[in-house]
């Protein structure tokens, strides 16, 4: 992820105000340029008019004096004109004679009488052509006409510092005003857009914060003023309900799976119960028949006790498998004995060779919760038994490497189908059809923070479940 997210990645609630602000800035620039342009034209016109009036007025007054080369008169007129002129606009006015020598100037120290006036004409323009150039001092030159002939020239330096300052002031105010307006409008735009898009934000939040379980948006938060958005949110709510219902159905299905697995065992288990029952009934009959023979009664009673104990073990294992209040109980070696008890009839019914090996110590086993691990192992054994078929082989090996508990269930027989593997190893949506046992294994192992590994080699399918040691709470 980059430090500065790309513009298109920004939320729409940020992007729209940014676009608004950008448009405002462009608008402000265009408006400012237009205002400054108009101001510049006004100032140029004012300047040009000032220069023209000044030069024309002087030309009228100066004509005869320049013709007579009367230095004092020329100076006197310039000096009076300077004093009469408003402010300090006219910095210097130089009047030159026909030969281009200074006749007089408002500041004779800068332009001494008799000096060459050419240097004062550098950069000078005609009064009507004078324009603001950014230079605080502008020069205007005009020939001095008298009675139809040119008798000299006038150069005037105009001080436009105030006009420049005015322009600067206007620029600053425009900048400040536009910046303020832009900020206000961008903020307003953001508020408006944020308000308009609040339902979208709520939608995104509802989808994000639910951690995979979409949460419906309350009816009050649906913007009924915006039909499009309202429809979108209503659709979303319907979708969340559907997802919830599906999750609920899956949950119910998973709960049922435990009974399903028992259901699959029931015939074998019934057989297991039925077998000792014949012996038990025989023993009961023997006792009744030979009630007076204590040795026979004792022998039969012992036989009955063994049969009943077996029945008790089988029913306890079944009860334990289904008791919900065992949740949170630590795993014990006896749990695997129970599993064996539950699975052995199934194995016998198919003449499956069972390789049962529990190596893990009680301490490592105790770090795992009993119910989920039993469910995982039973589901895998049932699956392995089904896959192994008649005369197959099924193996269970429980071992520990450090704190980690490994349960390996292997079987001969056909390999797992692609669909079954997906159920077991992936968390994607379940394809239609098929049971949920393998998916339940996957979900439980994920919930315990463990991992599932599948391997198929030499005609054997090997499923390994690695479970990390849980917290001390389970110890």
């Amino acid at each position, binding site marked *: 992820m980059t430090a500065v997210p790309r513009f298109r990645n920004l939320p729409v609630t940020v992007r729209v105000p940014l676009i608004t602000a950008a448009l405002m800035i462009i608008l402000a620039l265009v408006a400012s340029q237009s205002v400054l342009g108009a101001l510049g034209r006004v100032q140029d016109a004012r300047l040009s008019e000032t220069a023209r009036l000044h030069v024309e007025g002087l030309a009228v*007054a100066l004509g005869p004096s320049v013709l007579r080369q009367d*230095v*004092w008169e020329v*100076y006197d*007129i310039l000096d009076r004109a300077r004093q009469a002129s408003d402010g300090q606009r006219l910095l210097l006015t130089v009047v030159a004679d026909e030969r281009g020598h200074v006749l007089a100037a408002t500041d004779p120290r800068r332009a001494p*009488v008799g000096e060459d006036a050419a240097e004062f004409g550098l950069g000078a323009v005609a009064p009507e052509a004078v324009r603001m150039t950014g230079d605080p001092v502008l020069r205007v030159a005009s020939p001095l006409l008298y009675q139809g002939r040119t008798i000299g020239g006038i150069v005037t330096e105009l001080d436009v510092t105030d006009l420049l300052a005015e322009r600067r002031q206007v620029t600053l105010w425009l900048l400040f005003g536009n910046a303020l307006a832009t900020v206000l409008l961008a903020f307003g735009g953001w508020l408006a857009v944020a308000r308009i898009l609040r339902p979208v934000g709520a939608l995104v939040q509802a989808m994000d914060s639910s951690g995979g379980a979409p949460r419906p948006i309350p009816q009050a938060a649906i913007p009924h003023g915006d039909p499009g958005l309202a429809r979108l949110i209503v659709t979303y709510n319907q979708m969340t309900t559907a997802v919830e219902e599906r999750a609920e159905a899956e949950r119910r299905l998973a709960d049922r799976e435990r009974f399903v697995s028992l259901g699959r065992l029931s015939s074998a288990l019934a057989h297991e119960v039925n077998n000792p029952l014949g012996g038990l009934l025989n023993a009961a009959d023997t006792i009744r028949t030979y009630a007076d023979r204590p040795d026979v009664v004792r022998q039969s009673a012992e036989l009955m006790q063994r049969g009943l104990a077996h029945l008790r073990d089988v029913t306890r294992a079944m009860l334990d498998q289904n008791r919900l209040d065992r949740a949170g109980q630590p795993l014990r070696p006896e749990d695997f004995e129970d599993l064996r008890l539950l699975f052995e009839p199934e194995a016998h019914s198919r003449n499956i060779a069972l390789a049962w090996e529990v190596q893990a110590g009680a301490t490592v086993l105790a770090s795992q919760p009993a119910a989920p691990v039993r469910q995982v192992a039973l589901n895998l054994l049932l699956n392995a038994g089904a896959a192994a078929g008649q005369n197959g082989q099924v193996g269970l090996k429980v071992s520990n490497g450090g704190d980690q508990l490994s349960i390996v269930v292997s079987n001969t027989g056909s390999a797992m189908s692609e669909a079954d593997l997906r159920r077991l190893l992936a968390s994607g949506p379940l394809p239609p059809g098929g049971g949920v046992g393998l998916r339940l294994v996957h979900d439980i192992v994920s919930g315990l923070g463990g991992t599932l590994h599948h391997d198929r080699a030499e005609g054997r399918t090997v499923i390994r479940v690695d479970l990390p040691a849980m917290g001390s709470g389970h110890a």
Partner: protein
Amino acid sequence: MGQHRKGVGIRRDGQLWILCRQRISSNSDLTDHLARIKVTSAKGSDRYGPKIAEDEVHTRRSAILAGAAFCAAPMVRAQGAAPFRFALTPVFLDNDAAVIAALRTALGEAMGREIELVQRRTYQEITGALLDGSVDAAWTCGYPYLQHRDQLSLLGVPVWRGAPLYQSYLIVAAGDAATSLADLQGGAHAFSDPDSNSGYLVTASDLARIGATPDGFFSRSIFTYGHRNVVRAVAGGLTRSGSVDGYVWEVLNSVEPGLTARTRVISRSEDLGFPPFVARSDRIEEVGITACMAALQGLGKADRGQEVLRLLFLDAVVPADPALFNGIATRMAELSGG
């Protein structure tokens, strides 16, 4: 008393017109009396652009002038007699309309007749007008008076700081290091008028003493036709130095210290006869001229006259002796002799 209705206007040529209607009380009839006072600008309107001419009129001093004219108007008698024409030169206190108006008022009041104050640009014009009779009397300079001593007679001479004397000042810009006339060689110089004693003759004769002429000694010499203009030319840097009437410089130093502060006096001449009031000798016996002489010499006795003297920073006008101008005559001799 009569009822007054007044009006003031500026003509396109820059002349100021003042209209005063006076209803003279009488039992049966009311006579509207129209007094028209014309102020003729010494600087003809053709010499400046219209805008500048108007600016001149629209000064604070013009307002005072107008006010003074209103006060004067009821005094004017409609006798059909030609106004007494009195000439002034801007060489003195250029533009000081308040002084000019007060002077007209005071003279008019003392002489009992309308006064037309005539201002010309140069002493030469004033002298010419005086000699050809187009003006009756004039306040001029000792130098033109001496130039036409045979045709002109003295009506009186002002007393300034206790004596009818003044000096010519040589001035430079405040930051100039020059200390004497000799240091000014090669620079531009401002004179006031070729017929001015303090504004030309003194410096020209000083140069003549060392065998120099203004044109040769200075790089450029200009005539500004006004002592105040000389101060402006030097203060503004148009010329390096200037020859100015010491009295004018001192008065300016009081009323426009900002202007004189930009100049520095580097030398002062000896005391010379103050610019006198003169009239043509052949008309000295005329009623108007004698009335004028009496009015001038009596300025210190009348309220309005005292006002004029106060505005001019003068003490009085006293009868003059031609010998007062001997100093100027000496310099004239030096200049022509040189």
